[in-house]
């Protein structure tokens, strides 16, 4: 299934950071959901700021518009505030994208565990993410670091 771009993606002003405060808020909200949707679709967990400038998310070759680095930083900052993004380094060049927040993952995992009646049993992280039992679940294939984070929120063991 190919990724469906939102209508804003083909609207040139979308790629210019709007000075009007209200307009900007709506613009940033749209950008955040677009970025997260894209990452979810392609199962991307990390983003590099330099690379993302060229990625189709921020660069629409068809209308010849792309977001400037400052604007990308603003979008990322917005994501971070919402809890969907974490910077990997101090220079803010690479980041972790959590299109589902750790807490949400935690909840899902907990729900599955209780569904299969396995509460109070021990799991390895590997089992959770790559075990046969969990195939079909959304968190199957989840990377280790995010599993770890998801447990921080939920009081498991």
């Amino acid at each position: 299934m190919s990724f469906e771009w939102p209508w804003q993606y083909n609207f040139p002003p979308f790629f210019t950071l709007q000075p009007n405060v209200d307009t900007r808020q709506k613009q940033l909200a749209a950008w955040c959901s677009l970025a997260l949707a894209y990452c979810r679709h392609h199962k991307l967990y990390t983003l590099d700021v330099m690379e993302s400038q060229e990625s189709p998310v921020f660069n629409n070759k068809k209308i010849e518009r792309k977001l400037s680095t400052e604007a990308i930083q603003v979008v990322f900052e917005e994501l971070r505030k919402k809890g969907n993004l974490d910077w990997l380094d101090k220079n803010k060049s690479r980041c972790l994208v959590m299109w589902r927040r750790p807490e949400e993952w935690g909840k899902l995992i907990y729900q599955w565990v209780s569904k299969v009646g396995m509460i109070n049993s021990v799991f390895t992280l590997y089992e959770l993410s790559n075990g046969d039992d969990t195939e079909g679940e959304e968190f199957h294939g989840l990377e280790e670091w995010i599993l770890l984070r998801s447990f921080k929120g939920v009081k498991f063991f």
Partner: protein
Amino acid sequence: MDRFAWTNGLLEMNETLVIQQRGVKLYDGDDKAKLDVGVVLLTTHRLIWRDHKNHECCIALSLSQIIYFEEQAAGIGKSAKIVIHLYPVTANKEPGPYQQSKFPYIKLSFKEHGQIEFFRRLTEEMTQKRWETPVPQTISTLRKAPQTGKTRAVGIVGIERKIEQKRKETEQNISEAFEDLSQLMVKAKEMVELSRSIANKIKDKHGDITEDETIRFKSYLLSMGIANPVTRETHGSGTNYHMQLAKQLGDMLLAPLEERGGMMALTEVYCLVNRARGMELLSPEDLVNACKMFESMQLPLRLRVFDSGVMVVQLQSHSEEEMIASALDNVTDKGSLTSEEFAKLLGLSVLLSKERLLLAEKMGHLCRDDSVEGLRFYPNLF
């Protein structure tokens, strides 16, 4: 060298030191004087020479004894010199190092240079002749044509002296002429002081603005460029002059404003008004002050300042919402517009059309697309 007399080197009353130069050797005519190298001092009254080792050995001659003097350029192995031609010895001269001399001139040899400045100062002193009068620097010290000391009018010396005198006369005329100029400057300063004090007095008497003279006087002040210090101006009541001007502008600008869709940049107004007036041109300041009074005088015009600092005059009937709504329609029609396109569409200046688009953006009706192609405005679909 026989014109010199021994002296103790102390300055007399009213005598001031002008310049001194060390490393100077004296020459009696063309022969070296039997004195060592020393310091030569020029005062307002005399030329003093002192031995640099033995400070007791000090001789002087009055500047009044100098007929004229000239420079002698330095040569190979020779220092630059100043040759000073002197009047003959007077009978009552004090004793000096030389009883007699066969030369009517002496030379100062500047072994350590400094002759240029010394020459200049000596020229000055010889022109001013400050030793002649007790009070320096008043008009009376500038003398009439000098006719003193012409004992010998014959020979080359006589001709030289005549030339010297003529030179002195022209110098004097020039300095007299400049005296007038400096007098004028002094008077102008007084006038400025006077007008400033009157302006201050007016400032103190708040309530008397209705008096015609003070109003006229203030308009004179304004035309002279002295800023009106009256603080009333900032409170909007202003001077009569500005009020009249505002009325006149109100009448004059109605037609052009209609033509231009109800809004004109202040620069356009300035050009229009001055072109129409022809003779008595307005200063930008006057124009701005007059425009500020539109509202208080209940004229149908308004002065408006945009965020960017652009000032416009607009009709009161001109409604901002209408403008913005029509702007939005235009942009929606065409999909998107740049300020140039918009200007062309409406027949406005680019500046004003940009202001209108920016205002619409501020209201949230439009959004912008900033790219290498330029700044475009779209309807705000967000």
